[in-house]
C-alpha cells in the first residue's frame, strides 16, 4: 500500500531495473570502502510505479524508507542516471533532445531547434555582457537646494614685499635692471631691422651668466650652463622679457630666505582690509589665515580650513555674503614684479589650496566688485567606470600640499617631483619635498636652464604629469560672475574716506584709487549636482540574462545546477565502475568472470542502456546483509508491478525510455 502511493506521487517508471536490482543485490559482495557512506539502497523497493492517474487513497507514511536513506546515493548505471535525468530535468529542449533518441527524425529536429535557441541565447548573452562590460554610465543632474557652506575666499594684495633679509640683494638687482634697461633700449633704438642678431653678455655681478640676445623686436634672455647647450627664451615684448628676467632673479633671491623666517610686520589685516563682514556680522580673528605669496603678496584666506566654525549661507544675496573693504594703494614695493594694481581674489574649497594663478578676479581700485557664485558639484564614478581617483592615494605622485587631492595639486606636485629629480632643487612656487632646498643659482648654477627645459617638457606632456594625474571623482566648483559699480559714490565718498582713514589711523592719499570693495555671495542656493550612475547595474544585467534565458530556453540557474549534478554523477559513476572492473579483474577472479561478463555486455548496449553495471560499491558488504532483509521483503509487493508497465499513460518521452529498455 505504502509503496503504491509513493510511486504514484513520484511518477517514476524504472521497473526493469528494480526487479533486476532486487534479484542481483544479494549476489553482490564487493566491498566498497571508499563509499561506505553510500549504501546500496539506491532504488528502494518503494520505487514502484503506479501508472494509474487516479491516486489511491491509501496513504501510508514514508518514514521507514526515509530513515534508510543514505547521505548521498548514486545511480547504479548510466542508464539509470540518464533516465532519472530525463525524467526530472527542467531544461526544456534537453528533454526532447536527449530523451527522444528512439526517433532519429525527432532527435534531429530537436537538435536543430536546440542549437538554434542555444545560439540565439548566447548571441544575446554576448550582447548583454558586452554592454555591461563597457561600463556605460548615465548622467544624472540633480538640483539641490540647501544651506551651503560658504567657500574659502582668498584675497591677495598683488604687492609682494621686500624682506629685510634680502634687501641688499634686491637693491643690487634693481640697479642692474635699471642699467640693463637703459642700455638695452638705448641700444635697441639704434638697431635697424636688417641687422644681424647679436648677443651681448652682461658681466653682471650676479652669479648667473645672463646673455641678452636681441633681435629687431624679440628680446630674450638665455639661461646657460656651460655655453655648449643654450636655451633661448625670447619674448616679443621687452616688457615681458625684463619682467621674466627680473622674476627669475627674484626667485633666486627669495629662495635664500631661511626656513624659520615667518611672517613679518606687514601681517596686519588692518593694513589691507578695512572692514570685513559676513552675513551682516563682523569677522573675527578666527575667520582668516594669512600666507605670503611671492608674486601676489600678502594673502588672506577667509573661512579657510582653520576657521573655527565654518560660515554657512542660508540665504542668497549680497547681504548674506562676505563683504570686504580693501586698501589697494600701491606701495613702494617691487615695481618690476608687480605691474598691476588692485587686489586679487579667488574662491576655492576649504580643503583646497588657493591657486592664485589659476582662477580668480582682479579687483580694480575705486570699484565695488560683486562676485556672485553658483555652486556646482560633479561626481564621477571611479573604478571600472572611469579613470578618476577618490582620494589620490592611487596616483603615483606624492601630494606635496597638505590638502585634498585635486588635479591641480597633483600636477604641481608632479612637476616639483621631476624638478627635484632633474635639477636637484625645488621650484619656489611649489611646496618642496623634505630634505630638498629651493633652487638658487648660487648653489645650483644651472637650474634655470634645467627649469626651462623641464617647463618645455612639461607643457608638451613629456613628463607624463597629465596622464599620471587623474581627475578627482568628486569636484566642487564655483561658477563666478562679477558685476562692478563705482565705489564710493561722489556724494558719499567724503564721509566714507574720512571714516576709513580715521578708523585705521591712516590717511588715504589717493582717494578713490586707494580703496576697493568686494562682495562675494551666493547667487542662489540651488546647486546643480552632476553625478554619474551605472546605466547597467548587476541587477538589470541579471534580469536581462534571465529574460533571455527564459525566452529561449526556459531554464534557470537551478537547471544549470542540475546539469552540474549530472556531470558530477557521471564522473562518480564512471569512477566507480572503473574501480569495480579493476577489482573484479584482480581481486576476485572467481567473481571476475561474472564481472567480465558484465563488462562484455556493457559495450554491447548503448550508453544509456548499459544496464548491467550495478554499482558494486553500493552493495557494500556491510550494509547489504542489513538491507537485504528489507530489500528482499519487497518481492511480494512487486507482484503489483506486473500490471504497472502496461497502462503507462505518461509522457511520450518517458515511455520511450521505457520501451527502449525492454529488449
Amino acid at each position, binding site marked *: 500500500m505504502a509503496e503504491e502511493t509513493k510511486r504514484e506521487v*513520484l511518477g517514476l517508471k524504472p521497473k526493469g531495473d528494480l526487479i533486476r536490482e532486487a534479484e542481483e543485490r544479494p549476489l553482490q559482495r564487493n566491498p566498497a570502502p571508499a563509499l561506505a557512506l553510500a549504501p546500496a539502497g*539506491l532504488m528502494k523497493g518503494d520505487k514502484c510505479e503506479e501508472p494509474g492517474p487516479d491516486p489511491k*487513497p*491509501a*496513504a*501510508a507514511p514514508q518514514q521507514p524508507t526515509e530513515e534508510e536513506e543514505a*547521505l*548521498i546515493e*548514486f545511480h547504479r548505471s548510466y542508464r539509470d542516471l540518464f533516465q532519472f535525468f530525463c525524467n*526530472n530535468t*527542467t531544461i526544456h529542449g534537453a528533454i526532447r533532445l536527449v530523451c527522444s533518441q528512439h526517433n532519429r527524425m525527432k532527435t534531429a529536429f530537436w537538435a536543430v531547434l536546440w542549437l538554434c535557441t542555444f545560439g540565439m541565447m548566447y548571441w544575446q548573452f554576448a550582447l548583454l555582457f558586452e554592454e555591461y562590460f563597457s561600463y556605460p554610465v*548615465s*548622467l*544624472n*543632474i540633480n538640483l539641490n*537646494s540647501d544651506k551651503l557652506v560658504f567657500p574659502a575666499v582668498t584675497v591677495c594684495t598683488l604687492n609682494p614685499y621686500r624682506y629685510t633679509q634680502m634687501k641688499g640683494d634686491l637693491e643690487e638687482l634693481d640697479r642692474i635692471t635699471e642699467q640693463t634697461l637703459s642700455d638695452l633700449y638705448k641700444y635697441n633704438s639704434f638697431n635697424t631691422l636688417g641687422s644681424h642678431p647679436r648677443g651681448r653678455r652682461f658681466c653682471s655681478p650676479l652669479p648667473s651668466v645672463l646673455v641678452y640676445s636681441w633681435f629687431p623686436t624679440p628680446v630674450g634672455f638665455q639661461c646657460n650652463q656651460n655655453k655648449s647647450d643654450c636655451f633661448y627664451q625670447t619674448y616679443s615684448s621687452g616688457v615681458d622679457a625684463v619682467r621674466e628676467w627680473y622674476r627669475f632673479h627674484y626667485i633666486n633671491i627669495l629662495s635664500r630666505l631661511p626656513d624659520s623666517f615667518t611672517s613679518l610686520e606687514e601681517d*596686519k*589685516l*588692518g593694513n589691507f582690509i*578695512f572692514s*570685513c*563682514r559676513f*552675513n*551682516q*556680522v*563682523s*569677522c573675527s580673528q578666527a575667520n582668516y589665515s594669512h600666507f605670503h605669496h611671492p608674486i601676489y603678496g600678502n594673502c588672506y584666506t577667509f573661512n579657510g580650513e582653520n576657521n573655527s566654525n565654518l560660515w554657512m549661507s542660508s540665504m542668497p544675496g549680497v547681504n*548674506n555674503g562676505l563683504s570686504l573693504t580693501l586698501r589697494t594703494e600701491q606701495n613702494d614695493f617691487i615695481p618690476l614684479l608687480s605691474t598691476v594694481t588692485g587686489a586679487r581674489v579667488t574662491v576655492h574649497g576649504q580643503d583646497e589650496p588657493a591657486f592664485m594663478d589659476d582662477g580668480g578676479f582682479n579687483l580694480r581700485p575705486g570699484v565695488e566688485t560683486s562676485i556672485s557664485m553658483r555652486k556646482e558639484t560633479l561626481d564621477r564614478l571611479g573604478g571600472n567606470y572611469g579613470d578618476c581617483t577618490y582620494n589620490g592615494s592611487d596616483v603615483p605622485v606624492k601630494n606635496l600640499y597638505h590638502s585634498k587631492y585635486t588635479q591641480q595639486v597633483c600636477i604641481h606636485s608632479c612637476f616639483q617631483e621631476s624638478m627635484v629629480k632633474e635639477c636637484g632643487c625645488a621650484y619656489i612656487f611649489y611646496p618642496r619635498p623634505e630634505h630638498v632646498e629651493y633652487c638658487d643659482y648660487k648653489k645650483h648654477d644651472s637650474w634655470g636652464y634645467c627649469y626651462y627645459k623641464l617647463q618645455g617638457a612639461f607643457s608638451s606632456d613629456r613628463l607624463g604629469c597629465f596622464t599620471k594625474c587623474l581627475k578627482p571623482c568628486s569636484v566642487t566648483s564655483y561658477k563666478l*560672475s562679477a*558685476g562692478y*559699480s*563705482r*565705489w*564710493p*559714490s561722489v*556724494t*558719499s565718498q*567724503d*564721509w566714507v574716506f*574720512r*571714516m*576709513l582713514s580715521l*578708523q585705521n*589711523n591712516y590717511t588715504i592719499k589717493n582717494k578713490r584709487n586707494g580703496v576697493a570693495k568686494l562682495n562675494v555671495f551666493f547667487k542662489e542656493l*540651488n546647486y546643480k549636482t552632476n553625478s554619474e550612475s551605472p546605466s547597467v*547595474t548587476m*541587477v538589470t544585467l*541579471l*534580469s536581462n540574462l*534571465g*529574460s*533571455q*534565458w*527564459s525566452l529561449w530556453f526556459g*531554464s*534557470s*540557474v*537551478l537547471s544549470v*545546477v542540475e546539469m552540474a*549534478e549530472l556531470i558530477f554523477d557521471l564522473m562518480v559513476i564512471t569512477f566507480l565502475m572503473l574501480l569495480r572492473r579493476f577489482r573484479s579483474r584482480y581481486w576476485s577472479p572467481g567473481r571476475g568472470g561474472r564481472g567480465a561478463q558484465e563488462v562484455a555486455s556493457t559495450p554491447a548496449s548503448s550508453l544509456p542502456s548499459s544496464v548491467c553495471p550495478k554499482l558494486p560499491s553500493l552493495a557494500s558488504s556491510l550494509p547489504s546483509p542489513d538491507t537485504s532483509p528489507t530489500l528482499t521483503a519487497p518481492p511480494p509487493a512487486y507482484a503489483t508491478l506486473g500490471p504497472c508497465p502496461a497502462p503507462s499513460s505518461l509522457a511520450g518521452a518517458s515511455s520511450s525510455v521505457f520501451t527502449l529498455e525492454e529488449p
Partner: protein
Amino acid sequence: MAPGEKIKAKIKKNLPVRGPQAPTIRELMRWYCLKTNTHGCRRIVVSRGRLRRLLWIAFTLTAVALIFWQCALLVLSFYTVSVSIKIHFQKLDFPAVTICNINPYKYSAVKPLLADLEQETKAALKTLYGFSEIKSRKRREAQPWSSAWEGPQPKFLHLIPLMVFDESETSKATDFLTGQKRKVSGSIIHKAADVMHVQESKEVVGFQLCSNGTSHCAVYTFSSGVNAIQEWYKLHYMNIMAQVPLEKKVNMSYSAEELLVTCFFDGVSCDARNFTLFHHPMYGNCYTFNNKENETHSTSMGGSEYGLQVILYINEEEYNPFLVSSTGAKVIVHRQDEYPFIEDVGTEIETAMATSIGMHLTESFKLGEPYSQCTEDGSDVPIDNIYNAAYSLQICLHSCFQTKMVERCGCAQYSQPLPPAANYCNYQQHPNWMYCYYELHKAFVQEKLGCQSVCREACSFKEWTLTTSLAQWPSVVSEEWLLRVLTWDQGQQIKKKLNKTDLAKLLIFYKDLNQRSIMESPANSVEMLLSNFGGQLGLWMSCSIVCIIEIIEVFFIDSLSIIARQQWQRAKKWWSQRQAPACPEAPPSLRGQDNPVLDIDDDLPTFTSALRLPPAPEAQVPGTPPPRYNTLRLERAFSNQLTDTQVPAES
C-alpha cells in the same frame, strides 16, 4: 445516522470545491514539489541521498532569497530618473530685463523726509569721528553742525543710540549722545573683530536694540564705523519710508524717460514705453523691458548687435550719501512671470563703462513626486505666496520670513511685499520691531523658523548664464560729440550738461541662439519593472506569475486548510476525551474504533462544523456498537471514492 452519512457523502461528491491535494502538509509539499514548474523543488523530492536533498533545498532557498533581494533592489531603484540634455537651435524669446538705479530716490526729492535723520547722522559722525565738513555740491544750505545739537532733541539717536564700545570692557559703553558711561545689559552680540584693529585697537561702534517692556537687549557692534553708520541709517530710513504711500515714492524716484537715455533692441529703436514700471522698496523705480506676457520680443540673431542696448543716466549727484555708497545701476535677467530679486542676484553696472552681458539659456525640467521633492506651482507648499509672481524657492523663503515677521512682530519688513492685512513696520506703531526683526533674522539664518525645510524648489525653471565684460566708454575721441548729442536729446528731462560718469552703457544679448534643455524622464516604467521581475524569476528558478499563484494556493490556502483541519480534529479528539469520563460505561475499545471513523471523513471546519456537530452527541450514545461497524465499512468505501480526502488509513 446512516442517512446523515449518506447526505454528507453526497454533498461532498457534488461540492465544487475540494479539499487540498494531500491529507497532510508533508504530503502536500511532496505533491507540490513534484508537480510544480518551479525549478529546484522537484529535485528536492526526487533526489536520493540526504546530502543531495539538503543541497537541493539549499540551492532552492538561495534562489528564492536571490529573487527577493534582486526584486527588492529593482523596486527600490524604481523611482530613478534619467536625464536628457537637448540643445535646440531656435529663435529665442528674449527674457525680461529689469534695470534699477542703485540709488532709490532722488535725494533732492526725498530730503524733506530725511532731513532730521541726515542731521543726526552728521552729528553722530562728528561726535564719533570728529568729522564735520561734508562738501556737497548740492547741499550748500547745510546747517552748521554745531547747531544740530541746539536743535530739537534728536529723536533718532534717542530711539536707537549709537554707542562706542570699549574693546577691553565690552560691557561698558559710551552713549555718545549723553556722554554718560552706561552699563550695557543684556547679551552682547559682539561682532567686532578683535583682529580688525590690531594696531591700537580702541573703541568699536555699534548700537543697541532693546525690546520695550523687557530687559532684553541686543548690542550690535561693527568692525568698521562705515558699516555701523550705514546700518543705523538704513534702519531709520526704512522706518521713515514705511510711512510714505506708494504713489509718493514712485514720484520721488526716477522716471523711465530719465533713466533710459537711449534704447535699441534687435536693431530697432525702442523707448521708455517698452518698459514697465516696477517699484522695489530698496531700489526705487525699476524698469522692466519685455515684461508683457502676450507680446514677448524675441531675437532673430545672436550677438550684441541684436540684443538690448541702453544708455542709462545715473545722476550721481542725486545719490543718498548714507544709504548707498556705490554708484551704478543694477540689472537682472529673469522670466516674464518671475519676481526680480534685484538685491540678491542683480549684476552691477558701472558708470562710464560699457557693460556687455552675454546670455546663455538653460531650461531645466524636473520630475515631481515621487521622484523628487519639487513643486510645480507652489500650491502644495504651506506658505502663501505674497509676491505677485510665479513660485520660486526664493519667493517661498521670503514669503515665509515675512509671514513669520507679521506673526511675531506684528508688522511687515520694509524690503519685502506686504502680506494681506498687514502694514510695514515703523516705530511709531511698533516700537519693538527692530529688536524683533534682528532676533527673527538670526533665528531664520540658524534655520529655527523652519522655512528652509518647508520651502521646496520649483520643478521647472529657466536660467540665464551671464558673462560680463567691460570696456571704457565713451572713448576719449568720441566722448565729446557723444555727450553733446545726448545732452541735446535729453534736454527736457535733464537740465544739465551730461558728464561721462553720469552715464552707463549696457548691452544684453544672446551669445548664440542655442538653448539647452535639461529634462528628466523616468528611468523605469512599470513594464520595465515587470520584465525585470520576470527576468529575475526566470533566471533563478524559471518561475512565473502562475508559479507564484501556485505557491500561494499550496502554501497558504491548502496548508492553512490542512492545519485548520488538523486543529479541528485535535479539538474534536480533545472534546471526545473530555466527554468520555462523563460516560464511563462506554468501553475504551469502542472509543478507539470510533475515533478513526470520526477522523476519516473530516473536512474543512466550516463545512463539517455544520454537519458534524449534530451526529457527535449521537456517536457518544453507548451501547449500540454493531450498527456503527456497518457505517464504518460504508465509510471506508465512501472514502475510497473521494480522491481528495485521503487520510492515513489504519494500515
